[in-house]
């Protein structure tokens, strides 16, 4: 049971009186003992956000700034995980397929469902407050699905995006709105589906709409006031470096959106943020050249938004190969030398290792078991393209447009030294005809077919051997979109291609426990602890499930 504070002095005013008024209006009598990090006391400091790996709290979408999603809570182990049991289920009415990763602060869980936010008692799943906001009508594509990946917290404030790209600041203790900033205007096709990231005293947000002809950007807002501090446009304006790819006003519709949270290295003071594919997706004739900075990893100065360096995974992409997958920060030995790395599995079918101090390409390995768009990656990190160009008749390309991997979270575990990620092997027929941009319509120009018959895998890539330790084919009726997390005790947790929440032995890939949640897991799990008791939580369908040992 959580600690109960001692009540000091009088309370509960009765009949009004002159002498009683001071008590009535000055309820310091209701003050409780203040203790460090007590359950129920929401106050997240910048220092808290620097802790890695996550321990009892999970303070952001990816848990900590490295994006490794590897918890240090050690209660649940391969020896006792078979006793794991469901503790509670929370049902969110606003959408049918949640994409949120819950955030937990001091025993209180925050989840989002479309434009709504909820605070839950993380022990029981009961609702403490609910901030409701209507769905926005008339949005296109992903924003029109009203996905929302969750919240960020700083101090007693909670931050979330809405489907129409507003950044909300709520009081985390009550759900009341403090301020509301419309941060993506000028194009009806902007939306937002992500979770903000807090760095220092800034809130960082991006947008969706990369397949719909918007101009991508990453923006930073003052966490206290909501005033914009800087904005980095991912598509250069005329005259800027890379603008040769964007003749006339095509830069206004170039895509390159920043629709997933990035990572941050506080010692290098560098933000790492992935950008999406260029727009229009399949018609490269209107955007010659490499199409900077689409399908890139950007390294930015968080104080100014200045670009330090970039790495482009798929120059002049024609297959919807976003690069927004988590750039996981790993400090490890690479070829005998201890280095600061980024490890990331890209939609284009290659897993990459970069030096995160300068963006130098170190390594790439094909993980898509079927791949025909490139011969390989050269020693600068640039793909050797096979020149497959979508046309009116259609061209068969592998991986398919959904990519060999996608936004579902990967995890790096420093104990097993393995990088865990989900992959999907499929090909599709890519067709293209040049079309004009139009607000209110997508801007794929034109589409793909035939992705359905693919194979899903959960992969363990060993950083010591630079090879796969195991690759588990997923069996199930659905294409899986469940992300992954891991633990210091060597467990890997994820949602599979059926309706199971599964826990594996991370070294061997052998399943140790699973639970049928009765709906699709379209989100990435997390872990938290309350008074030493460890829980796993994952969003599945319209619900959030929490599990712990009895």
């Amino acid at each position: 049971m959580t600690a109960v504070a001692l009540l000091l002095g009088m309370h509960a005013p009765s009949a009004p009186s002159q002498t009683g008024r001071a008590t009535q209006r000055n309820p310091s009598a209701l003050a409780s003992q203040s203790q460090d990090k007590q359950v129920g006391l929401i106050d997240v400091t910048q220092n808290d956000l620097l802790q890695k790996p996550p321990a009892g709290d999970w303070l952001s979408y990816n848990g900590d700034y490295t994006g490794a999603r590897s918890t240090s809570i050690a209660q649940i182990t391969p020896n006792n995980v078979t006793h794991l049991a469901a503790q509670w289920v929370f049902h969110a009415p606003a959408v049918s397929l949640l994409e949120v990763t819950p955030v937990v602060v001091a025993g209180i869980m925050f989840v989002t469902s479309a434009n709504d936010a909820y605070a839950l008692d993380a022990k029981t799943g009961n609702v403490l407050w609910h901030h409701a906001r209507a769905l926005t009508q008339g949005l296109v594509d992903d924003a029109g699905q009203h996905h929302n990946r969750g919240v960020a917290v700083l101090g007693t404030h909670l931050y979330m995006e809405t489907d129409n790209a507003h950044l909300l600041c709520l009081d985390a203790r009550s759900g009341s709105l403090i301020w509301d900033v419309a941060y993506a205007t000028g194009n009806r096709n902007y939306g937002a589906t992500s979770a903000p990231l807090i760095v220092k005293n800034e809130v960082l947000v991006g947008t969706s709409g990369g397949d719909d002809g918007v101009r991508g950007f990453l923006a930073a807002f003052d966490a206290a006031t909501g005033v914009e501090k800087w904005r980095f446009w991912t598509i250069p304006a005329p005259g800027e470096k890379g603008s040769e790819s964007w003749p006339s006003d095509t830069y206004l519709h170039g895509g390159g959106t920043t629709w997933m949270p990035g990572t941050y290295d506080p010692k290098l003071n560098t933000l790492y943020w992935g950008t999406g594919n260029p727009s229009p997706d399949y018609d490269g004739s209107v955007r010659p050249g490499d199409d900077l900075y689409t399908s890139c990893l950007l390294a930015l100065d968080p104080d100014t938004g200045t670009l330090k360096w970039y790495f482009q995974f798929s120059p002049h992409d024609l297959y919807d190969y976003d690069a927004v997958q988590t750039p996981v920060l790993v400090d490890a030995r690479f070829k005998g030398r201890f280095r600061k790395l980024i490890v990331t599995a890209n939609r284009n079918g290659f897993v990459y290792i970069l030096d995160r101090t300068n963006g130098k390409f170190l390594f790439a390995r094909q993980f898509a078991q079927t791949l025909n768009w490139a011969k390989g990656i050269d020693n600068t990190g640039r793909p050797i393209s096979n020149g497959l160009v979508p046309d009116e008749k259609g061209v068969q390309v592998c991986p398919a447009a959904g990519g060999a991997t996608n936004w579902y979270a990967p995890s790096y575990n420093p104990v097993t030294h393995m990088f865990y990620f989900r992959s999907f092997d499929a090909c599709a027929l890519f067709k293209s005809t040049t079309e004009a941009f139009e607000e209110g319509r997508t801007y794929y120009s034109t589409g793909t077919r035939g992705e359905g018959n693919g194979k899903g895998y959960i992969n363990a890539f060993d950083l010591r051997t630079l090879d796969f330790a195991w690759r588990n084919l997923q069996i199930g009726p659905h294409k899986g979109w469940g992300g992954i997390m891991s633990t210091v005790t060597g467990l890997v947790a994820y949602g599979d291609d059926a309706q199971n929440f599964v826990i594996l032995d991370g070294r061997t890939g052998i399943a140790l426990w699973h639970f049928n949640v009765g709906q699709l897991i379209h989100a990435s799990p997390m872990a938290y602890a309350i008074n030493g008791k460890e829980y796993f939580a994952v969003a599945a369908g319209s619900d959030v499930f929490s599990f712990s040992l009895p």
Partner: protein
Amino acid sequence: MRLREMRGYLCVCAICVVVSGSPSALAQTPSGILGARRYLQFCAACHGSDGRGGNKAASLVTSDSVRTRSDEDLFRIIHDGTAEGMPAFAQIGEDNIRVLVHFLRILQNGTAPEKPPQRVAIAGDPDAGSALFFGKAQCASCHRMQGKGRYIASDLTAYGRIHNVDAIVRAIVDPHAQSTPSVRVVTVTTKKGQTLTGVLKNEDNFSVDLQTQDGRYFLLDRSQLARVSDSGRSLMPRDYAQVLSPRELDDIAEFLRLAASKTALMNSEQ
């Protein structure tokens, strides 16, 4: 009395109940009476004859997520229904829906003064009102405005959007004329003899979740509690009419009105 007559009698009584629950001048107008009739016809079965919710549906009068919606939003909700299970009422026609929206606002705004307001219509000073809110009047000891204040009473950030100055002043000087408070303040005593008072956020057979005045949550197992008691009354002081001058009351009301109408919405491109 025959059944048909009884039904008619009950309908008239119910209209009187609804209308008398909010005996404002507005409710007595033809559109108010028509709104009451339509409300009983289409809404009361789920939302209660007084609009404060029933087994099946939310309170339209006290729920913030209803009160803070625009008239256009309310129109659309009545017209299209909701994902949570409210049926669509498009078939009753747009005129009737407009009448219902108008009537909802009557229900939400509460009572009207029996006498015309005594004050001259000079706007209060919102800056003075803010100083009072956070100072002498100690409103912030219980309430919150835009994230500042305490947690033992409701958040007033949007209150001024749908309450005029007179209604706000009335709510301050005669708070208990409003019906049940929207927050429940409870006191729990643990089996070890410690006590705690706060706003009840959630309770069931197994747990009691409280929020104390400073915003902290206490998430408690009921099995550890010896007693849970509910004062059943609002903590709002009843003597503001004596403590604050009419000018000060106007200032506070103007502060609430301005804070709500000031757009918290910032367009970052401007």
